[in-house]
C-alpha cells in the first residue's frame, strides 16, 4: 500500500500522466499503434500461404495405354496438382511451360505400357518451370513422393502376385507431426507477424516521441522540471509499454479467432517476455532518435535498422532455410530470440525451463540497449 502511495505521488507518476495524456491526444499515434497490427495480421495470415494447391500439370502421353492412365491417376488423387491439359505433342507442352501456364510437364514415352508389363523400369520425364525455384522444388518433392508411393504399390502388387504372400510394405513408417498436426501454414506466419509488428511499431513510436519533443523544443521545459533524466525517460517509455501490451492482446485474440492459433503455454510468461522485448525495441527507437536531427531522418534510419531485424529473425522465412553464414548473423538479432519465445509458448507449449536461454539473452540485450539509449539521451539533454 505504501509502495503504491509512493509511486502515485512521485514525480515519475506526474510525468507518466502527462506523457499518457499527450499520446492519447495524438489520435494519429493511437491509430498507428492499434490499427495496423489488426489489419496486417489478418492480411498476412491469409495471404502468405506456402500451401501448394492446384499446381498445373500438363501431360504428354505418347503411350496411350491403360498402364499410363493408371500412372496419371497419382496426380489426380491429390489437391496439390490439377491436370490442366493433355498434349498430343511435347513441343506444345513445353511452349506452355515457357509462358508460365504450367508448373510441370510430364512426358510418358510410347514404351511405357510395355516396360511395365515386362517388369522393366519405365522412364518418365518431368519438366519443371523453375523460375519460381521454391514452387519447383516443392512440386518436385511432391511428385517424387507420389512416384515413390506408386513404385511401392507396384512392388506390393507384384510380390504378392508372385506368391511371396503377405509381404506388405517392408518398412512402414508412421509420421507424427508435432505441435501442428493439421499443418496449418498460417501459424508460422502469424506467430512471426506478431513479433514483426511489435518491433516495427515499438521502435518507430519511440523514435517519433523523442524526436517530436526535440523538434518542438519542449526538451528545455523537460529539463527544467525537478524530475531526474532517468525519470523523464521512464515516463516516456511506460505509456508506450502499456499500449504495446494492448497490441499483444489484440493480436493474440485476433489470431485465435481468425486462425485458431493456439496458446499452449503460459500467457503470463509470454506477456512478461513481450514487455522485456519491448524494452529492446523501444531502446532501439530512442537510440535512433538521439542520433537524428529530424523526424524524417529518424524514420529513414529506422528503415535502415528494421528490415534486417525482421528478415533475419525467422519471422516469415525460417532461419534453417538461410545460408550458413547468414544463420550466424541471426544470432546478433534480438528479434530472433523473441520469435523463438513466441513460437515456443504459443505453439510448442513450453515454459521457462526450455526458454531460459532466450530470455537471458533478451535481458542482456535490453539492459545494454536501454543503458546506451539513456546515456545518449542524457548527453543530449545536458
Amino acid at each position, binding site marked *: 500500500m505504501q509502495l503504491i502511495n509512493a509511486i502515485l505521488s512521485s514525480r515519475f507518476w506526474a510525468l507518466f500522466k502527462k506523457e499518457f495524456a499527450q499520446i492519447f491526444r495524438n489520435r*494519429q*499515434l493511437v491509430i498507428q499503434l492499434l490499427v495496423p497490427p489488426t489489419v*496486417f495480421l489478418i*492480411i498476412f495470415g*491469409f*495471404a*502468405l500461404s506456402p500451401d501448394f494447391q492446384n499446381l498445373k500439370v500438363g501431360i504428354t502421353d505418347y503411350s496411350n495405354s491403360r498402364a499410363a492412365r493408371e500412372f496419371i491417376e497419382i496426380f489426380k488423387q491429390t489437391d496439390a496438382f490439377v491436370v490442366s491439359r493433355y498434349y498430343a505433342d511435347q513441343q506444345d507442352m*513445353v511452349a506452355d511451360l515457357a*509462358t*508460365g501456364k504450367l508448373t510441370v510437364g510430364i512426358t510418358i514415352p510410347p514404351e511405357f505400357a510395355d516396360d511395365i508389363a515386362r517388369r522393366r*523400369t*519405365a522412364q*518418365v*520425364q518431368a519438366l519443371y518451370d*523453375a*523460375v*519460381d*525455384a*521454391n*514452387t*519447383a522444388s516443392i512440386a*518436385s*518433392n511432391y*511428385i*517424387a513422393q507420389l512416384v515413390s508411393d*506408386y*513404385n*511401392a504399390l507396384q*512392388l506390393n502388387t507384384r510380390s504378392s502376385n508372385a506368391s511371396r504372400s503377405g*509381404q506388405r*510394405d*517392408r*518398412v*512402414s*513408417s*508412421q*509420421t*507424427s*507431426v508435432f*505441435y*501442428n498436426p493439421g*499443418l496449418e501454414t498460417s*501459424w*508460422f506466419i502469424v506467430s512471426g507477424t506478431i513479433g514483426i509488428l511489435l518491433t516495427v511499431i515499438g521502435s518507430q513510436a519511440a523514435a*517519433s516521441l523523442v524526436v517530436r519533443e526535440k523538434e518542438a523544443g519542449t526538451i528545455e521545459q523537460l529539463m527544467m522540471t525537478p524530475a531526474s533524466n532517468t525519470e523523464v525517460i521512464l515516463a516516456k517509455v511506460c505509456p508506450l509499454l502499456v499500449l504495446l501490451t494492448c497490441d499483444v492482446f489484440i493480436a493474440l485474440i485476433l489470431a485465435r479467432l481468425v486462425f485458431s492459433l493456439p496458446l499452449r503455454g503460459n500467457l503470463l510468461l509470454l506477456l512478461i517476455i513481450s514487455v522485456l522485448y519491448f524494452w529492446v525495441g523501444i531502446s532501439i527507437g530512442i537510440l535512433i532518435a538521439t542520433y537524428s*536531427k*529530424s523526424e*524524417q531522418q529518424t*524514420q*529513414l534510419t529506422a528503415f535502415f535498422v528494421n*528490415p534486417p531485424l525482421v*528478415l533475419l529473425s525467422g519471422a516469415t*522465412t*525460417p532461419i*534453417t*532455410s538461410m545460408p550458413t553464414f547468414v544463420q550466424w548473423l541471426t544470432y546478433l538479432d534480438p528479434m530472433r530470440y523473441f520469435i523463438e519465445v513466441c*513460437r*515456443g509458448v504459443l*505453439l510448442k507449449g*513450453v515454459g521457462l525451463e526450455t526458454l531460459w536461454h532466450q530470455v537471458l539473452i533478451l535481458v542482456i540485450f535490453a539492459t545494454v540497449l536501454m543503458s546506451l539509449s539513456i546515456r545518449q539521451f542524457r548527453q543530449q539533454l545536458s
Partner: protein
Amino acid sequence: MTIRPKRIIVQTIKELTQLGRDRLTLTLALGLPLILLLLFGFAVSLEVNKINFAVQDLDRTPTSREYIATFEGTNKFNIVTQGADVDVPKLLDRGRISAGLIIPPEFSRDLQRSGRSAEIQILVDGTDANTANIVRGYAKATNNTFVQNLPGINTLAVSLHSRLWYNPGLETLKYVGTGALALTVTLFPALLAGLATAREYEHLTILQVYASSLSGTEYLLGKAAAFWLVGMAEVLLVNLEAWLFFGLWFAGNPTPIILGSCLYIACGVLWGIFLGSNTKVQSAAIQAISFTAFLLSLQLSGFIYPVANIPIAIRWVSYLIPARYYIELTRDAYVRGVGWFGVWLQVLALTILIGLFFFLAWRKMQKMQVNS
C-alpha cells in the same frame, strides 16, 4: 489544366536541391536499397537444405544402422545426435532438430520375418508447416529408398527424370534475386516523395505553393519528376549490384524491363505523393507508405509466395499492387527471356496504374486551396 514545362523543371530542380541538402537522407536513399538487395537475396528462402535430425535407435543392429545410413546418404539430413537414450520430443521442444526417428527394438527382427513389417516412427516439427511438409516428404522417400535397396526386391516400376527449365541449378538466388530487385526499388521513391509532400503541409510551405501561379498539375509533375529521377538512379545502382552479386543479366530483350522500370518508379512516386497529401504529417505518411508500398508489396506481390496461393478474397488487392506486375517483368527479363510477347499485359497494367495514381494525387491537389 495548364502545363508549362519550364515551371515543372524549376519545381523539379527545387525539390532536388532540397533533397541534396539533407546528406543523411540522400545517403540512405541511395545506399539502403543496396543493402536491402543483399539482405533479401540471401536471407529470404523457403528451401530446405540441411535438416537437423536425431535418431533414437532402440534396436542397435547393423540393419538399423544401415537404415540410419540411408538417411545420412541423402545429404539432406544432418544427424545431430543418435543413440538409445536420445529424447526426440525434448529435442523438438528445444528446437534443436526439425525431425527425429525412433527405431523400435524389434526392427531388424521384424524385417527378417516375412509376413511382418517393421515399424518406424518419424517425428516432425510442425511449427513451420512448409518445412514440415517437405521434411515429411523426404523422410518418406528415404524410407522407400531403403525398402527398395533391400535384398530380394528388384526393379523400380517407374524412374522419374526431372529437368528444371530456365533455372537448371535451381538457384533460389536467381528467383529471389529478381524479386529482391523489384522490391528494393519500391520503397524509397515513394517514401521520399511522400515525406516531401507531407513536410510541405506540416511546415505550411504549401500555402506558398497555393499562392503562386503554379497549377496543381505542374506542381504534381514537378515533384514527381524529381523523385522519379532519384528512383531511376536507384534502379541503375541496384541492377549493377544484382549483376555483381547474383549474376543477374538480361536473358533476352531488355526494352520491356527498361520501360517497365520507368513506369514502376512513376507509380511509386505518385502513390507516395498521394499518401503524403492525405496524411499531411510526416510520421503518419511514413507509416502509411511503409505499410502499403512496402509491406503489402512484400507479401502480396508474389515475391516469396506465389500469387495463386492467395485466397480469392484478398487476391483482388494484389491486382492493384504495381510490384506484382514489376516482379513478373523482372523475372521474365532476367530469367525467362520471353520478351514483349509474354509481358505486354504487365506493362499495360503498370500504365493503367500510373493513370489511376496520378488521378488520385491530382484530385487532391488541383484545387490549390486551403480546406476551410
